[in-house]
């Protein structure tokens, strides 16, 4: 049963990640390749707070979201000046710089050795959450909150402005909306939720190292998002379900481990190509990337 719970927890983390990526990619048409960087920043900052201070979880989560969100301004700053492919390469750059810093700044991050023994989350500062059940409940609740939030965000005034920016940026500008403000806010929220996923991951696995937050991870999140679909809530959720459950299904087929890892990547890649050809909005998505 713990095995099933573990999968559900990872699924919840990936649902948060794909939803956070959807906010900028699917709704504002800003193709970012640095979601894993925010995920990593969240995990490392969260680890810092968990290991140094004895704070209640809600406070740690709020701090992590705030700090991770602050890092997003670096990216949203770039999005104002750079368009299309230049923006993509700039976000890739951000991702690689964050990875390089996490890997090489050994005094703070312990670099490739990683940080072991991350303590569990303290709810209201009193009892420590440990064990798979606690994280199951916690991640389910947070996932539900995020899904609820993003579901309503799509039809909210904020979501509609983002949608309008996606459709025609210049018209929105001429209507007197501050595009920079809306884009920055979208990036902030997106990074904050990715950071939240990061701290849950760090605390649940209780060990982090930079190799969980690489460019490949960003591309993986992107693949999940685009297979599932962009522009609404059910698309990204389906994408996360697909990429998290597929390896488990392949496990039951009984392939050797070395082949299975590569085979599932091949399946993701093929799925991505086929989806882009037959259904560019994704399996359950609403909008198509321009």
């Amino acid at each position, binding site marked *: 049963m713990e095995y099933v719970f573990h999968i559900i927890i990872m699924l919840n983390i990936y649902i948060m990640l794909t939803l956070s990526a959807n906010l900028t990619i699917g709704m504002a048409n800003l193709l970012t390749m640095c979601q894993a960087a925010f995920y990593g920043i969240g995990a490392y900052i969260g680890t810092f707070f968990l290991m140094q201070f004895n704070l209640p979880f809600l406070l740690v989560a709020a701090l992590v979201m705030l700090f991770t969100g602050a890092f997003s301004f670096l990216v949203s700053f770039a999005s104002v000046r750079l368009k299309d492919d230049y923006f993509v390469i700039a976000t890739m750059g951000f991702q690689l710089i964050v990875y390089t810093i996490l890997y090489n700044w050994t005094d703070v991050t312990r670099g490739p050795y990683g940080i072991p023994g991350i303590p569990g989350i303290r709810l209201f500062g009193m009892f420590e959450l440990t064990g798979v059940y606690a994280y199951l409940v916690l991640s389910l609740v947070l996932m539900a909150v995020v899904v609820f939030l993003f579901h309503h965000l799509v039809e909210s005034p904020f979501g509609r402005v983002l949608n309008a920016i996606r459709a025609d940026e210049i018209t929105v500008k001429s209507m007197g909306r501050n595009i920079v403000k809306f884009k920055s806010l979208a990036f902030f929220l997106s990074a904050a939720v990715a950071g939240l996923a990061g701290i849950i991951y760090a605390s649940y696995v209780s060990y982090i190292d930079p190799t969980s937050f690489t460019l490949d991870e960003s591309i993986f999140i992107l693949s999940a998002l685009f297979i599932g679909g962009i522009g609404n809530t059910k698309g990204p959720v389906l994408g996360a379900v697909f990429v998290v459950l597929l390896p488990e299904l392949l496990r039951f087929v009984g392939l050797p481990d070395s082949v299975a890892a590569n085979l599932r990547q091949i399946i993701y890649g093929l799925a991505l190509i086929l989806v*882009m050809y037959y259904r560019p909005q994704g399996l359950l998505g609403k909008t198509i*990337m321009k």
Partner: protein
Amino acid sequence: MIWQFVINGLITGILYSLLAIGFALVFNTTKIFHIAAAGIYVFAAYMFWFFVASVGLPVIPASLVALVLTMLLSLLTEVLIYRPLKNKKASLNVAMIASIGAMTVIINTIAMFFGNETKVIDNSILQPLTFGDIIITSPQKYQALIGITVLIIFMVLLQRTNWGLRLRALSADETLFETLGYDTKKTRVLVFLVSGVFIALASCLTVYDVGLDPNMGMNVLISAVVAMIIGGVGRFSTCILGGLTLGVLQSLTVYHFASNWQNAVTFLVLIILLFLRPQGIAGYKQRTV
């Protein structure tokens, strides 16, 4: 000592230039952000390794076979992915995401057959050249000689032949190109074949020196793309300028700091450049980047 690093940087820069041109051939003409090039790069490396180490061919025939196979794979990405998407009028971002899928498929297929560990091609018996206190290893000698020759031939062909003119015309304005009665489809086939040549050359020359593993493609491709942007997008000669600049810059980073900060410095320079001079060192001026 510093000149050794400059020379190393220049030779690395030649390799970046080759890959940057391989990427720019596709990017300038089709405007697709050709991430699958990373997969094609890895494919070329493994074919080269396979024919040298497993089949036992000498280095030159093996690299030629790898070259031809890589050209075919490059053409396959066009025929199987980009062309159908173009016929469906899919946007460039959609093509790019499909390209990511193609890269994933290629790299993992290779990893499945050949394993994930690092491999090397034996080049140990060759004597290095020395000029004073500068040492040029034998693989570096080949990299420089072949690289420079190919770049010169390409530049001459690009400027002096009808073929080169078409290529430049297609990268300048596709609609006009078609309006004047040229066949975009045929020209694109050519573009992808030549792109395959450059990717294969960059790949074979690099792995002959430093070895290969299935995950090396993305990092090298990103460096090449950065080289292309530093030089200036929209032309081909600028790739060489950018490649050499980036090569020397990375090498000097190693000299002054350490090799593990290379990527961070590369991107800092790129981002600063994008803000201050978005068209690159010698690119065409554009209204928006």
